[in-house]
């Protein structure tokens, strides 16, 4: 018997978007990876400069978005700790680099560290729900950042850690290309793993916890274990993203890991669509591209050089979209696509029956 403290919630817990999301089978994951491969090929061959960089940024963001989607969309655990886990991964990787450890070892350590912090962060989750849970993750955010800030201050000071990004020896474009393919491989593995988890027993258990946590134990689901699992897995992946980012950009500084960053990932997951890998990727692409896309559009429309306002305007856009989607369309863009496809199918079926 356990005591659970929560606010009196209306029916249901977190969102329950279309359960059809669960049916993303191996076939769809494979199709997704092929599409990703095609896009990566196109980008590495034809695209250079800022846009190649942006593509890699998107691939990195997609990793975190998929992880957050598992946590929030599938398992229904609200978390503002995204920036904190990114910071854990990044700073452990940096510390490893400072200690002279090889890159791969640094990344592994970062992943383990992030998973450990995730396990710790899961502790409050075992007793808290909803808003209280979110506030607990907020605390975790500030506590982790304090640690990171102290570390940074003791080593380098306010400017942060600076070094050359990995793959730079291949030149500007060669470096970006190398990163694109590396990230593609990692992301594909992630997509396969996530799809299998979401499709199988683990996913069903998570959804049960999301939709009706009290009833889950009745069905034999060990809630504690599954909650712990989703936190550890998602924070490990986010930590991996943080570590990779260190080697991708070369620089790390505490100022980048803000609550606004955590909210950015929340926006990705909600705008893209909860409980959907495709949604996570779409959301990640959308939010990552927006700060660059918006000034371009504005320039075409108004002819003014509003480039430096790009991030601020992008923030307004995805902030409003976040509010809109979470209230009106929780299955996000992916859900919209799904509904459009179903309507097309229905149309086809009607047409066939009319031929008598």
């Amino acid at each position, binding site marked *: *018997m*356990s*005591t*659970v*403290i*929560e*606010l*009196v*919630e*209306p029916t*249901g*817990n*977190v*969102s329950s978007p279309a359960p059809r999301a669960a049916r993303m089978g191996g076939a769809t994951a494979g199709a997704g990876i092929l599409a990703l491969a095609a896009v990566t090929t196109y980008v590495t061959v034809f695209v250079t400069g800022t846009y190649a960089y942006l593509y890699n940024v998107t691939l990195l963001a997609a990793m975190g978005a998929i992880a957050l989607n598992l946590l929030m969309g599938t398992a229904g655990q*609200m978390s503002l700790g995204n920036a904190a886990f990114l910071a854990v991964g990044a700073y452990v990787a940096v510390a490893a680099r400072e200690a002279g450890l090889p890159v791969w070892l640094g990344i592994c350590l970062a992943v383990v560290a992030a998973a450990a912090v995730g396990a710790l962060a899961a*502790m*409050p989750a075992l*007793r*808290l729900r*909803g*808003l*209280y849970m*979110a*506030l*607990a993750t*907020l*605390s975790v*955010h*500030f*506590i982790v950042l*304090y640690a990171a*800030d102290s570390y940074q201050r003791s080593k380098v000071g306010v400017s942060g850690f600076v070094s050359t990004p990995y793959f730079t020896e291949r030149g500007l474009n060669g470096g970006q290309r190398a990163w694109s393919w590396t990230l593609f491989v990692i992301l594909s593995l992630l997509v396969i793993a996530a799809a299998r988890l979401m499709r199988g027993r683990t996913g069903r258990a998570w959804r049960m916890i999301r939709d009706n946590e*009290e009833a889950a*134990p009745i069905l034999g689901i060990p809630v504690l274990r599954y909650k712990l699992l989703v936190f550890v897995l998602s924070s490990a992946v986010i930590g991996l993203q943080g570590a990779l980012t260190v080697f991708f950009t070369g620089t790390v500084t505490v100022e980048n890991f803000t*609550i*606004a960053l955590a*909210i*950015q990932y*929340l*926006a990705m997951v*909600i705008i893209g669509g909860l409980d959907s890998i495709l949604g996570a990727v779409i959301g990640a692409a959308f939010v990552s591209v927006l700060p660059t896309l918006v000034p371009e559009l504005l320039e075409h429309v108004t002819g003014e050089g509003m480039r430096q*306002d790009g*991030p*601020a*305007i*992008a*923030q*307004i*856009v*995805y*902030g*409003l*979209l*976040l*509010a*809109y989607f*979470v*209230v*009106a369309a*929780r299955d996000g863009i992916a859900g919209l696509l799904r509904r459009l496809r179903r309507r097309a199918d229905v149309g086809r079926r009607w047409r066939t029956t009319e031929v008598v």
Partner: protein
Amino acid sequence: MGQLVVSIVGGLLLGGMYALIGLGLVQAFRSTGTFNFAHGQLMLIPAFMFAGWTSSGAMPVGIAIAAALLLSAVGAVAMFVVVLRPTIGLPHFVGFAATLGVSIALQGAMQLWFGSAPRRFELPLIPDGRMEVLGVGVSKEAVVLALGANAVALVVALVMRYSDGGIRIRAAGQDALLASQGGINVRRVYLYSWALAGTLAALAGLVYGSTNVFDTSSTSVALVAAPAIVLGGLDSLEGAAVGGVVIGLIQGFTASYIGGDAVTVVTYALLLLVLLVYPAGLFGKTSMRRV
């Protein structure tokens, strides 16, 4: 002794501010069941506007203050009607995520409109200079504003508790169905609650803006109201006021005796502790289910 006095004055100043924000937040919380993440923007935007209006001397200060309060009240009501009212009845996380979205959008708008330049302003009628409290020199402004903010918070709490209007607002917040059957226009009460929340936030913003240099990143100050109201109890008005003052004092003492950098982490570590040990807070009631 000197450090003690400075801690208390600074702490009460912060505490008064948090109490004001917290009172508004709790009232808003009762009407929608969500914590309004966008309160920081509601607090700072009037401060920025006030700074703009009074720096050029274009507007008499009294009108500027009234306009700032009105701006936030209207903004809060708009936020409620457009974004949050549709979320009543949906799981609480939806409203919370919606306020996250609004706060981020407002933050972007603030960045566009106000830029990164830091501001500060002086409120009129507040004496300048230093004074002696128990033999220690402190800024007169800080003392006056600390007392003022706490006094306002106290008055609001008392009005809520004992006045007719206050009782209606609290009733509507506790049980909307019963309240409406008792003849209270719940829909209108919710609007008033949010207008009040906005006004109090603006007031806190004015207090903050005249005692601190602020810029667009200062919105995170209002976030500290979260530990304050959790400590006090999310659905308790007295708790919000008390929690605000307590957190303010804790911050004041931490800043003095440990150092300014530790303030944030101590505050949020306290929040985590409260959440783990006694989430209902000092004065709140919360549903507890034994499963």
